[in-house]
C-alpha cells in the first residue's frame, strides 16, 4: 500500500510537470523584461511591457477579431448542420444513403487536415471560375472551411446523445397530441441542449486554433490569430507572443474552472433531489 502510494505519488508529480511546466514557463516569461526570450532580466522583471506591445499591435488585434468572428460563425453554423445530421442519423431509421451520410460527416475527423485544406482550396478556386463565387479567399471561405470539419464533431456529439436518449419521451409527446415539429422544439431540443452547447464549444475551440486548413483557405489580409502567431514565431520567438499565449491560456482556464464549478453544483443538487425522492418513497 505505502509502496504503491509512493510510486503513484511520484508518477503524479512527473505527469503534472510534463503537462504544466511548458505552459508555466511561457506564462513566467511573458512578464520578462528582456527582449531575448531565453534570458531572464532580473533587474526589470516582472513587467507588463509585452502586454502593452501586444495591445498596440494592429496586426494581432485584427487577427484576433477575425478569428473570433470566424469561430463564432463557424461554430454556430456547424451546430445547426450537425444537429440536423445527428437527428437524421439517430432517428430516421435505416434510410437510403444513411451509411454514406454517416461516412461523409465523420470523414473530416480522420482525414489529414492538409488534404482537407488542399481539396477545399481547389474547390473554391474551381467554384470561383465556374460561378464567380467566392471572390478570392477571405472570411467566407474561412468559415466554410471551418464548418466542414467542425460539423463532423457536432454530429458525433449529438448523435451519441440521441442514441442514449429515451425515445419514448418523444413518443409520449406525440401520443399527447404534439405534432413532430412541436415535439422537436418542446421535448427533443431542450433535452439535448447540453450536447448542442458542448458541440458548439468544441467547434469554437477547434475553429479558434485551426492553423492548417486556415492556411489554405485564407486570403491575403485575412490571417487568423494562429496564423499570425505562427508567422511571428517563424521569425524568432518574440516575447509578445508569450503575452498573447498567456491571455489565451487564462481565458481557457477560466472557462474550464467555471464549467467545473457549475457541474459540481448541478451534481450536488441532483444528489439532494434523489435523497428527497428516496425519503418520499418511505
Amino acid at each position, binding site marked *: 500500500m505505502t509502496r504503491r502510494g509512493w510510486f503513484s505519488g511520484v508518477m503524479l508529480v512527473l505527469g503534472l510537470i510534463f503537462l504544466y511546466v511548458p505552459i508555466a514557463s511561457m506564462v513566467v516569461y511573458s512578464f520578462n523584461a528582456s527582449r531575448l526570450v531565453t534570458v531572464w532580466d532580473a533587474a526589470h522583471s516582472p513587467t507588463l511591457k509585452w502586454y502593452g506591445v501586444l495591445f498596440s499591435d494592429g496586426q494581432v488585434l485584427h487577427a484576433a477579431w477575425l478569428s473570433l468572428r470566424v469561430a463564432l460563425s463557424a461554430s454556430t453554423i456547424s451546430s445547426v448542420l450537425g444537429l440536423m445530421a445527428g437527428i437524421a442519423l439517430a432517428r430516421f431509421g435505416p434510410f437510403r444513403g444513411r451509411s454514406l451520410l454517416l461516412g461523409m460527416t465523420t470523414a473530416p475527423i480522420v482525414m489529414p487536415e492538409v488534404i482537407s485544406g488542399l481539396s477545399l482550396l481547389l474547390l473554391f478556386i474551381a467554384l470561383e471560375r465556374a460561378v464567380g463565387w467566392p471572390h478570392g479567399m477571405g472570411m467566407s471561405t474561412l468559415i466554410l472551411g471551418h464548418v466542414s470539419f467542425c460539423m463532423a464533431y457536432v454530429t458525433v456529439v449529438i448523435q451519441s446523445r440521441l442514441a442514449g436518449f*429515451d425515445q*419514448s*419521451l418523444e*413518443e*409520449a*409527446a*406525440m*401520443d*399527447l*397530441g*404534439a*405534432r413532430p415539429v*412541436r415535439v422537436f422544439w*418542446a*421535448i427533443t431540443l*431542450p*433535452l439535448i441542449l447540453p450536447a448542442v452547447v458542448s458541440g458548439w464549444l468544441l467547434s469554437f475551440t477547434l475553429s479558434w486554433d485551426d492553423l492548417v486548413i486556415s492556411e489554405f483557405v485564407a486570403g491575403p489580409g485575412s490571417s487568423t490569430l494562429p496564423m499570425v502567431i505562427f508567422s511571428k514565431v517563424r521569425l524568432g520567438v518574440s516575447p509578445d507572443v508569450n503575452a498573447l499565449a498567456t491571455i489565451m491560456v487564462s481565458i481557457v482556464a477560466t472557462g474550464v474552472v467555471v464549467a467545473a464549478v457549475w457541474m459540481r453544483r448541478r451534481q450536488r443538487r*441532483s444528489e439532494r*433531489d*434523489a435523497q*428527497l*425522492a*428516496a425519503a*418520499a*418513497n*418511505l
Partner: protein
Amino acid sequence: MDGVQDRDLTVPMVESRSQEAIPEPAYLRLEGLSKRFGEFVAVDAVSLEIARGEIFCLLGGSGSGKTTLLRMLAGFERPSAGRIWLDGQDLSAVAPHDRPVNMMFQSYALFPHMSVEKNVAFGLEQERLPRQEIRARVAEMLEIVQMSRYTGRRPHQLSGGQRQRVALARALVKRPKLLLLDEPLAALDRKLRERTQFELLNIQQRLGVTFIVVTHDQDEAMTLATRMGVMDHGRIVQVGAPAQIYESPANRFVADFIGSVNLIEGRVTEAGSGTVLIRSEAPACAIRAVCTLPCTIDDTVWVALRPERIQLQQAQHEGAAVENGLSGRVRDIAYMGDVSICLVEAGATLMRVTVPNSSGVLAHIARHDEVRLGWNASAPVVLLK
C-alpha cells in the same frame, strides 16, 4: 408514502368485474391486424373485440408481440395488414397525435425538464384549450391520483410510485377513449405494486375509461383484467376471463404460462359419457378426467394438473395403482409462508404439489418420505394440443 392514499381502496370491485359478455357492437375491434418487420412476423393476424369500460390484459412472454400490438394501437407502428376500429372510427391510418388514444409508458416517459403540473398539462396545451380550463383539469386529475401536493416537483424529485401516478394522470387528463398501459407496475417494488394495482382499478372505475394493459406478469393480469388475451408468437392463443383461462386453458402453452402446472402426456384408453381414462407412462398412472372434448381411444393427449388440486398423503397402504393417484418420494419441500411447495419424484418425473401450511399435512411428512398423490376427476384438464 402516507396514509392519505389508502382512503379510496375500499371501493367494491367484485360486482363490477362480472361483465363478461361483450355488448354489441364492440367498442374496439381489431380485424386481422398484422405487423411484419422484414421476415419476422411480430403480430400475426390478430382479431379481437373489446367492450367499453373493460380492462383487457394482453399477457405474453418477451417477443410474443404484445408490445408491438400496443404500439400499433397507439399509432407508433403502422400495421402491415388489418384494421383498427375504435368507437366506429377507423384508426388504422390516423397519426398518433390525432388518435383519441393515450398511452402510459413502461418507463413512464415523464418529461424531465418539466414540473409535474407542466407534464400533465402538456397534452391539453396541444389542444389549445383556454388556460383556465387546462389549470382546472390538471388540478382535478392530480387530485384523483393524489399528487396535488407535488405539482411543482420535477420528475427526478419523485419516487417511483409518484412518477407512476403522474404518468397515469398525464395519460388520462385528455380523457382518451382508450388508455394503453405498457407494463404499468413493472418498475414498482412488490409492496407498492399490490397497492397500486387496486388504485388503478379504482381510478379506472371512477373514470370509466377502457384500459388495455400489456404485461408479462400473470399476477398483474389476473388482478387487473376483466378479460385477458394470452399471446404467443404474435398470435392470441386464448381470450377469456382470468378464472376461465386458469381453470380451463386452451392448450399446453397457456396451461404452462399461467400459474404452475404438471403436464402429463398420455393415451386415451376409455372414452365416453363425459369422462375419459388416460394412461400415462411418465409418471405411470391412470387418470380419469371430466372431458367434453372430442377424443377417441388411442389419441395422444396431455393432462394439466394444477399443483394445488393434488392431495398429498403419507403412503400407508401399499395398494394396487388406482385411478387418479400415484406413489412417489418427496425430493424437496419449499416453505413459502402460506403454502409449501413439494417436489415429488414419481419414477423419473417430478410432480409439483402445493400444500396449504394451515392443513397440517406436512407435520408428518419430511424429505425422502414415500407419499401418495391423489386428485378428483374434476381436477385434471385434458388438452389436445
